[in-house]
C-alpha cells in the first residue's frame, strides 16, 4: 500500500501534541510497536517545536506543513516551515548546539531526530524556510 497525507496547521505550541498524534494515527495501519510509535512522536515533536521556536521565532504567526508517505511499511515524513531558515546546517546539526540558550534549549532536537529515526535530512533557505525529512521502517 502507498498512502499519503498532508497536514497544515498554525505554528503554535498548543498544536505540537496534535501534530504528533496525527502522524502516529497515520502510522497505525502498519501496526508498529509502541516503541516505534513513541520514537516517531518524539522526532515529530522535535521538528515541529523547531518550526515554532526557531523558524517563526515564537511569534505564533505562520504555518507548518507535514507531508507523510507510507510505502511498504516505510514512513517518510517531511516537516516544513516558511520562516527564518538556517544559515549553517552543519553547525545546527551539532549535538548541544543551540541559538537559544537563554531559553534553556538543549541543542538536542536534531540529535534526537537522528537517533530515533532511520534517516534525517535538512534543507533550508535563509529567509524562506526549512524542511526536515525523516524516514523510519515501521515493520
Amino acid at each position, binding site marked *: 500500500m502507498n498512502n499519503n497525507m498532508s497536514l497544515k496547521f498554525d505554528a503554535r505550541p498548543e498544536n505540537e*501534541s496534535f501534530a504528533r498524534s496525527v502522524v502516529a494515527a497515520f502510522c497505525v495501519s502498519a501496526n508498529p510497536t509502541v516503541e516505534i510509535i*513513541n520514537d516517531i512522536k*518524539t522526532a515529530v515533536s522535535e521538528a515541529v517545536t523547531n518550526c515554532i521556536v526557531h523558524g517563526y521565532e515564537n511569534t505564533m504567526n505562520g504555518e507548518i506543513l507535514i507531508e507523510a508517505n507510507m510505502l511498504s511499511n516505510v514512513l517518510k515524513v517531511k516537516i516544513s516551515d516558511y520562516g527564518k531558515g538556517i544559515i549553517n546546517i552543519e553547525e545546527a546539526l551539532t549535538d548541544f548546539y543551540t541559538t537559544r540558550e537563554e*531559553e*534553556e534549549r538543549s541543542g538536542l532536537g536534531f540529535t534526537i531526530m537522528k537517533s*530515533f529515526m532511520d534517516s534525517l535530512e535538512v534543507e533550508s533557505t535563509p529567509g524562506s524556510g526549512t524542511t526536515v525529512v525523516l524516514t523510519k521502517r515501521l515493520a
Partner: protein
Amino acid sequence: MQVTTRFKQSTLYIYLDGELDQSVADRLRAELDKCMGSSGVEKVVFNLRKLSFMDSTGIGLILGRYKKLRTKHIPLFFDEPSPQIDKVLKVSGLYDIIPVI
C-alpha cells in the same frame, strides 16, 4: 501537565503528570522553581511515572533546574521514567549528572 509535591525527611518529591513539550514549558518552569525554592530542601526527586511524553524541550528545562539546584549544592534524582522518556534521557546524557534514584 500537572505537578504535585511531597516533602519527606528533607527530600522534595516532585511528581510530573502529563506531556512535557514546548506548550507547557514556561508554566512548568515557573512552578518547579517555586516549589524547589522552599527552605529545608536537601534533595530533590523528579518522579516521572505519570509523565507520558517528553522531548528535548524537557531536557533543557530539567538541565536548567539542575543548574539552579547545583548552586545550592542540592542533588537531583529521577524516579520511574517510562520507556519513551528513558530513551530521551539516555540519548541526552542527562543520567550522567541526574541519576535514577
